């Protein structure tokens, strides 16, 4: 009677033979970037003067202590206005194929412009940004040094993007495992296997364990939709694109609670269960959740080098 089971296993095995290559690639230990620009970008990233009420900086929502993401369910902008979305991590964002939840920015520089001008985030206009930067002797000097001219809005974005490029978190346990430098624990191993057989890896793959495609939240059992969600529907207007988001990276996922675009889930375990329900149509066993959590925790890397070094 176990013949079907065996057949099914054999079938799974035959499929497994097809993907000898790992779907996940380690991130490089270092990345090349323009040091001077990145240092300027770091300064700008942390400068609340770049917001209309001088209360919000980039770093306000992309906390270096919380995996480059916002520990609050949704971000709070100038004048204490709450946003509609949980800020995704700025770490390793360089490796994403597009930026923002719905991928509306093609690169980091384009992305950086968004929150700066969003009235409920930093609420600045180009002229004000330039006026501020030009009034500051230090900025003037540094911009002159790097861009050979007085500060401009565009160059400021360029510097911020260069800084964000440097924000990589290398040498997580899983990367070291991929490079053959270490062994995974049994639980982690089981977790990784589940990650692949449950179908997580069909979306969460590549260098960033995600961030390289769009996917629907709620394939099997729909996820409740709100007009304010920053999904693909906002861009394409196609009903099928409702609740379609850029697949988020799972790197440092253990640090970036709360989870999902709406920051509605406070723990990793709960997030796993929710994903399983909506996209697999089934519940995970406690054992599966434990193993998957172990695996996901192995994706936590080192804090970006540029944040550790004193200027």
């Amino acid at each position, binding site marked *: 009677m176990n013949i079907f089971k065996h057949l099914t296993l054999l079938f799974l095995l035959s499929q497994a033979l097809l*993907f000898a290559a790992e779907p996940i690639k380690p991130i490089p230990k270092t990345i090349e970037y323009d040091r001077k620009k990145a240092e300027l970008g770091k300064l700008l990233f942390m400068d609340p003067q770049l917001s209309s009420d001088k209360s919000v900086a980039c770093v306000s929502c992309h906390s270096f202590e919380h995996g480059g993401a916002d520990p609050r369910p949704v971000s709070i902008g100038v004048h204490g206005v709450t946003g509609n979305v949980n800020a995704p991590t700025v770490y390793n964002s360089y490796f994403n194929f597009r930026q923002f939840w719905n991928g509306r920015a093609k690169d980091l520089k384009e992305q950086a412009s968004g929150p700066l001008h969003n009235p409920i985030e930093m609420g600045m206009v180009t002229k004000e940004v330039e006026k501020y930067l030009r009034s500051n002797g230090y900025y003037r000097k540094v911009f002159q040094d790097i861009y050979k001219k007085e500060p401009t809005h565009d160059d400021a974005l360029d510097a911020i993007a260069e800084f964000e490029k440097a924000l990589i978190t290398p040498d997580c346990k899983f990367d070291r495992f991929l490079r053959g430098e270490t062994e995974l624990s049994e639980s982690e191993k089981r977790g990784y296997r589940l990650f692949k057989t449950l179908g997580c890896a069909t979306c969460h793959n590549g260098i960033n364990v995600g961030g*390289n495609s769009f996917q629907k939240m709620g394939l099997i059992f729909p996820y409740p939709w709100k007009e304010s969600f920053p999904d693909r529907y906002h861009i394409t207007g196609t009903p099928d694109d409702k609740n379609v988001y850029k697949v988020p990276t799972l790197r440092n996922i253990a640090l970036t609670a709360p989870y999902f675009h709406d920051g509605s889930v406070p723990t990793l375990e709960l997030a796993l269960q929710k994903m399983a329900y909506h996209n697999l149509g089934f519940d995970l066993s406690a054992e599966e959740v434990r193993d998957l959590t172990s695996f996901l925790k192995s994706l936590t890397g080192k804090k970006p080098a540029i944040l550790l070094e004193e200027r």
Partner: protein
Amino acid sequence: MRWLVLKTTGAIAAALIGIILILFQQNSLKSSFQATQRVSDSLKTLDADYITLQRIVLQASYFPYFDNDAVLNQIKKIRQRLKNLTENRLLRRKDYTKTREELLHAKEEFEAVTKRIHEFLTLNASLKNSSVYLPTLTLKAYDIFDMHNESDRDTVVLLSKINAAIFLTKNALDDSFLEEIKEYKKELERLKTEVEEKDRKRLLQASIGHLTLFLKIFPKFHDDLEAIMKESFQKEIESAIESFFKESKREISHINNLGELFLALYLISITMVLYFIFRSEKENIKLKRVSEKLKRSLITDHLTGLENREAYLSMKQRMNHPALILINIDRFKHINEFYGSKMGDMVLRQSAEILKEIVPPYLNANIYRLGGDDFGILYEFESKERTEKVIKEIIEEFHKRAMSIDGVAIDISISIGASYATKLFETADMALKVTKSSTRRRYTIYDPSIDVSEKISKNIRALKELKRAIQDKDIIPYFQPIVELEGCTVAKYEALARMRTRKGEILESKEFLDVAKEAKLSGEITAAILHQTLKIASRYDTIFSVNISAGDIMSSYDRKNIFELLKSYRKSASRIVFEIVESEEIEDYDLLGEFIEEVRGFGCKIAIDDFGSGYSNFEKLLQLSVDILKIDGTLIKDIESSEHAQLVVRTIVDFAKTANLETVAEYVHSEGVLLKVQELGIDFGQGHHFGKPLPAEKIERGLNGSG
């Protein structure tokens, strides 16, 4: 100089232009070729890149899970390549409008495909999610359902069938199974209503969810995949490649046309430069010719075409041991005066021609005209013998060639002086003068003995010789007949002094008389001649005249000697006529008168020699008691043509007849002169026409002994 700079600059400029043009053409061809190659390579690579992208997409669809980065990276790669191509400088040119247009189309097409790929990735992930999770659900079903229960088993079997159908549909990309799957779904939905248990219900519900999803998105997925696999983008690229080849071919032919134009320009500039070079070279040659002509004219004698003294001097400088043969045309002054200078010029010209012909080629000599009638032959000295041989050849050859000018044959002789001493010309000239001063010598080769300083020693030698001749009785008389013109019979003889040298040569009096006079030996000679004549006269009944100079007569010693001789030959003394020569030197006429009286006492007669010549003092001479007037030879010589001579001679003859004096014409050298002197009534004649001076033995044969 300015021309040279211009010429050089022109040539260099032309060469540079040529090189630049050729380099430019080569370079544009090369760079065009390279740019074309790059673009065509890039286009082809683009095609290949897209095929790779398709392969990656297929892999992504086939493998249960896959690294989507591979797809994205490939998209990025193609996008970058498209961007580079549309921004390519070559393709931005007007020549490639069509290619670029097609590339922009391709780019649009690619963006559309990219959109499809993103959609595909989303759908693909969902499908895989289901196709991976459905078997997982089936495995779970083994645990949840009771495999011993038939209806439960059917449910699991159904789930397995669904797995197989999904697997086939997805991996074979075959829509035909969708209907079957729909049936399975209905079956599952029916089964779901039958199960009560929550777990079972959930499992079936999830399976239905996956099937619903699969049925919903598979057609879309299939569509996307087909669109990605379709060759529309590739076709765009291919037509871009085709247009590119067409357009690049046209561009290269443009460059080639341009190259031909450059070549033509280059050839024109080269031709122009060549023309300028040729023209200025021609002018140069002309200038060179003129300057050469001028130079030649400076060193050329225009009359004869020979090189002149200047050329001689510069040539001499360049020689190691020069030898010079100096040739002078004898009596050239006479030719000039006689025939006119025009004729003289022609003589010079012909002489030059002759010299050119006869100077032996082995001598490697240069011939010059060095003065009025002086020619020079300059060559490297080898030996005196050779020089002598050459001179002899020249003289002989020159003599052989009769010179004829305007049909008139002119007998030209030459004198030569040669030298190879340091002061070449001066010494050769000295040698020439020696030749000239001798009647017999035709040439002289300079040696120090003919130098002036050496002349004294020569004179001393001559004096010694003279003294010896007097001592040895080698001063002998030669006799020339004096003819009575009326009957043309020999009436008497004039004794002329000759000197027999030790070698037996007979010298005429002019060759030793100067020396004799200088040494006061003239009287001795007169005495010697008188003595021998008296001896001969004693044997023949014929009159003999003997020359006596004024100087002899003035010398008491000589007078005494003459009187002694006359006393010794008293019998033949009356057959002697004293011809007083050099009467212009007479200083004491009284003493002369006394001498004449004294010799008359012996029966001698007195003649005045050279009467009528420039300085004769007629009056004083005629006061003397003389018997005969010998008319000056120079008057007779020209008697035929000279009216003046005729007048003078006629006067003398008239006077002589009146004074009852005999007249004698000397220098009767021709029949014409003879007739003339006969017509003038001169009594006697003397000259080569009648006979040359001969030694005593020869005339004695024609004389009758007188006892």
